[in-house]
């Protein structure tokens, strides 16, 4: 694990967010250091995805602060946050189904001010990571299998050369073998390029094995944090997320 630097890459301080009257985040504190993989686990409706979306300003934070590389981005418009090279693979993947795989990937780089050669290099990097996408380049995004769509969503996010990659449930609905490939790819990205990753998962076992550190979220609050290996050993985690029991 990399040594934590003085200022974390992403720092979230007592963040609150709500959908109408329903409060989804009730004061969340979280920090991600550069070069780390951080897993955020929790049950359905705990607020994991909301936390990820609030970093992007949808929904807007009601209170609290989001700092990216020391800059306050709490009130910055969504598209400008993306241009600060925070990329996400959103829940449900949200690729562009009628556009080709190549076009989907180009979309990832369009909003950034990268040159043609950087674009080509980015494409090279993505296809090296996911060779399946190379075969499917001219196919329409909607014709891909679920796993390939997930690869495409991650690949699209990588095209902007992100400093922070946020993944929402990358293993959702995938065959275990494909899910393992995806997790393997994330590990490679982190090891080779030092990419910082926040991974939101229900599949706690996989995510915690992959992550340097993990946070457990229950009802809009962080209840536990620790290293991945540490959290995996905790009896309450095992009971709640790994052995099918209910969290008390």
């Amino acid at each position, binding site marked *: 694990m990399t040594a934590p630097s003085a200022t974390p890459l992403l720092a979230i301080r007592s963040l609150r967010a709500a959908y109408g009257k329903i409060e989804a985040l009730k004061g969340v504190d979280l920090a991600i250091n550069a070069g780390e993989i951080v897993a955020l686990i929790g049950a359905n409706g705990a607020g994991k995805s909301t936390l990820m979306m609030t970093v992007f300003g949808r929904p807007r934070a009601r209170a609290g602060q989001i700092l990216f590389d020391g800059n306050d981005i709490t009130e910055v418009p*969504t598209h400008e946050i993306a241009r600060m090279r925070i990329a996400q693979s959103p829940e449900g993947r949200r690729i562009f189904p009628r556009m080709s795989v190549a076009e989907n990937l180009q979309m990832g780089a*369009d909003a950034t001010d990268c040159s043609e050669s950087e674009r080509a290099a980015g494409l090279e990097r993505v296809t090296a990571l996911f060779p399946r996408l190379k075969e499917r380049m001219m196919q329409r995004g*909607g014709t891909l299998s679920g796993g390939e*769509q997930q690869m495409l969503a991650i690949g699209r996010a990588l095209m902007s050369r992100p400093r922070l990659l946020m993944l929402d449930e990358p293993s959702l609905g995938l065959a275990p073998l494909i899910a393992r490939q995806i997790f393997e790819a994330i590990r490679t990205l982190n090891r080779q390029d030092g990419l910082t990753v926040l991974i939101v998962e229900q599949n706690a076992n996989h995510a915690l094995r992959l992550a340097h550190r993990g946070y457990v979220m229950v009802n809009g609050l962080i209840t536990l944090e620790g290293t991945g290996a540490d959290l995996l050993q905790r009896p309450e985690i095992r009971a709640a997320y790994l052995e099918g029991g209910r969290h008390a």
Partner: protein
Amino acid sequence: MAGVTAAPASRSSAASYAPGAAFIFKKALISALVALVLFSLMIGVRTDAGPDGQLTYWTRFGDLAAMVATVFGGSIVVELLRQWWGPVGTVRIVPPSVQSGLAVARRAIAPLLLVFTFLVPVIFYNERYILDLGILVLTYVMLGWGLNVVVGLAGLLDLGYVAFYAVGAYSYALLATNFGFSFWICLPLAGILAAFCGVLLGFPVLRLRGDYLAIVTLAFGEIIRLVIINWQSLTGGPNGVTGIPRPTLFGIPLTPGDDGLAAMLGIEFSTTHRIVFLFYLILALALLTNWVTIRLRRLPIGRAWEALREDEVACRALGINTTTTKLTAFATGAMFGGLAGAFFATRQGFISPESFTFHESALVLAIVVLGGMGSQLGVALAALVMIGGFELFRGLEQFRMLVFGLAMVLLMIWRPRGLIGHRAPTVFLHHNQAISSDLVKEGHG
């Protein structure tokens, strides 16, 4: 996918069951009943104004019975045909030679159509009617291509496109009649003013999509028309604007006078010269629209329009400013509408609010949808079929609309994605491997 084409889903479902005679009879009976209800007033009863202005009517039950019987019989025939076709199976093998031949034909159709269009004034020089029809078709091709940017690419359903057409037409008409500006100065001005109106419409509808957007744009179209009708001091109200100057060939008028083009070239003057000039003018404008659209599609802004149509949330997460993206789509589409409007004004020499009713918006939208949203060639073909076909059926008189409606329904059954449903990719790698829209459904994994 080599040589194998999947049949439409409807056929495979028909194969799964074989309805008996009772089922067919019941279905035909229901169809006949619907026909009876529909036609009882439409055909069964005729009304007319009597000699003293009172309403007279008479019945035509014989015709009605014949109609209902036709529907009954037709329904049985259709059902039998469906059964006969059904068990053929869901996979059709097309020989590769036929397929490659079709592919060549498909690639050749656009250049051939373009060459033919260029030659129309040469071939039909003495047929004024054909030339006028050609100009009309090209005007709608241009409007279709313009609306295609908004509806086909950006996916913003615009029912008020005629507003921009009107703004363009009135811009030229008023600037030319009041200030004496020439057509070539007014043309870009009309485009700019229409684009400005596009942005004006764009702002309030930024958050709207689909049905809601359609309603607001529909209202916008009506507002512009009502403003034109009621702002009498400027627009002349329902009387319209008359005496709009004809276009000149870069300053050289197409008139019989000594300074006219005919006199300068030393040829005999003919009114056809002006028609031919107008034909090439609208052809050039339409091709400009097409060229700009094709170029934009390959740039990030065009890609952003298409991505916006697919998924707005994902766009924003990728750093696309959806506000400016939508506004540029509205402005670009509106600009082409405005240019077409200016052309319309100079061609007619007279414009009035009657030319800019909702009917026009609906027609242009129908062209875009029938053409296959987003397909340039499809829109051109649809304009040709809609405008040209409408003229073709003129002999059928009151049944023209019926034939037309039927054709549209059939087209939407057989080609639900429009004439050309295939979307051409904009990013190319080593080779271009196109996939027909029939082959793929919008799957989700």
